[in-house]
Each structure stands twice: as C-alpha cells, then as structure tokens.
C-alpha cells in the first residue's frame, strides 16, 4: 500500500503533501505517543485523534511518512508547518479511530508487531 491508497481508502482530505508514492507497510492507531514510540516499525502510518506538534515529532522520530487525524480534526498552522518541513503527509478523515483502523486493516495493512 502507498500513501495515496490510504487517502483513497479513508476518503481523506490532504492537509499537506509529502511523498504520496511512499510505500506503507504497517499502521499504528493511538492517542498516546509513548505507546507509539514503544514499537519501532518501518514505513508506518500513524492514526490519531490527538492534535498537537508532538504528534509530528513522534512521527519524525519513527520515520513515519503519513499522519491521519481521525474524526475530521484540523491541525493548526504550527503543526502543518512542522510536518511540511519534515516531508510528512498530513490528512484528515471523517471516520472515527476504530473505523479508520478497520478500513486500513481490511485493505491489507497490518499492525506489524507480533502479539
């Protein structure tokens, strides 16, 4: 799956655009950034309901190419600028967290970690 597929599946609005052709192998859905940081996964997308700059910082540390804000949440300019400077794609989807994760999962994206 590539970033562009995630936009299509979640009917997402692109807030800022990084590399839409970047391959995405795993996904992580959480509002708790320390939980995100606990599991290193390569080429991952982050789904979150949290809207603050630390979401972008967390994605940066984890080399994540794309952040999805669920329930149509809008990040402010500071967050968008930070993501732009890091080349991270930001998008929002009207779907709630559970549904957004489920849609990606049923389309073949996994959590990427063993239980």
């Amino acid at each position: 799956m590539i970033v562009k597929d995630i936009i299509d599946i979640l009917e997402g609005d692109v807030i800022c655009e990084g590399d839409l052709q970047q391959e995405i192998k795993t996904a992580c859905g959480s509002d708790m950034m320390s939980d995100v940081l606990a599991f290193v996964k390569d080429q991952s997308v982050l789904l979150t309901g949290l809207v603050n700059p630390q979401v972008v910082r967390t994605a940066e540390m984890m080399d994540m190419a794309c952040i999805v804000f669920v329930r149509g949440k809008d990040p402010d300019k500071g967050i968008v600028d930070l993501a732009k400077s890091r080349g991270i794609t930001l998008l929002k989807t009207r779907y709630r967290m559970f549904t957004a994760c489920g849609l990606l999962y049923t389309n073949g994206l996994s959590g990427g970690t063993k239980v």
Partner: protein
Amino acid sequence: MSNAIHLHYEVSSEDFTRAGEASGSVKKRLKSLGFNGDVIRRVAIAMYEAEINMVIHAEGGYCDVDIYPDRIEVLLADKGPGIPDVDKAMQEGFSTAPDNVRTLGFGAGMGLPNIKKYTDSMRIDTTIGEGTKLYLTVNVPQ
C-alpha cells in the same frame, strides 16, 4: 577519542511544542553521517523521550551528544527535583506526570522503560532536590 563529534543542546521547558528539537537535530546529523536507520531511530526515540521527561518534570536542562564510529553516547542533565525511587520509575505504567501532560500524549509511564528498551546501556544518577543525569549509549553494529 579524537574522532568524536560533540553536539550540545539546551532544552527549554517554556514551550512544550519545541520538545523534540534537539532529538530531531541529532537524528538529522546522524543521517548525514551515514549511520544506519535502526541506530538513528533508537538514538532519536530514546533522546526524545528523555527530552520530554526533562520538559515535564525538570523545567528543562541540557544534552551532550558524542558520536563515535562504534557508538553514540548521550548525556541528558537537568536541575529538576530528582527521582525518589528509580526502580519504581522504571516500571511500565508508573508515572508522576501531571494530568495535563496526558492530554498531550505523554505521561503514561512509558518514558524510562522505552529509553531502556532502545539503548544498549542506560545509567541514572539522581539526587533529590538537585537534579538528574541520564547517560545513554547506543552501540553501532560493526
């Protein structure tokens, strides 16, 4: 060692949104030096968690980073309240962070356990009322 690259950062607690700038900058530097992605990520994540801790608990401080060909050493020092019970602080889920920090996505008691997980060695020197020094090393597989 003469071929070490030394970096120094001040970590301010005035603006939570800036927490992570030092880690991001180190990440970029390690990338430009050609270290492998796994090593870079481990250093960046451990340092980022420590930076967040300094901002939450200790009103900031500084970090020193020494980059050697075979390892990366990071010292994070603050003049905060110190850690009363280090063993307890190392337990997953134990946190003394104020509630408002949780609304920012941190304060789940995962900081120090995460740092330990991603580093090859971790040492905490802490004195109540004086501050905490956290020494981290990530080895570079040869």
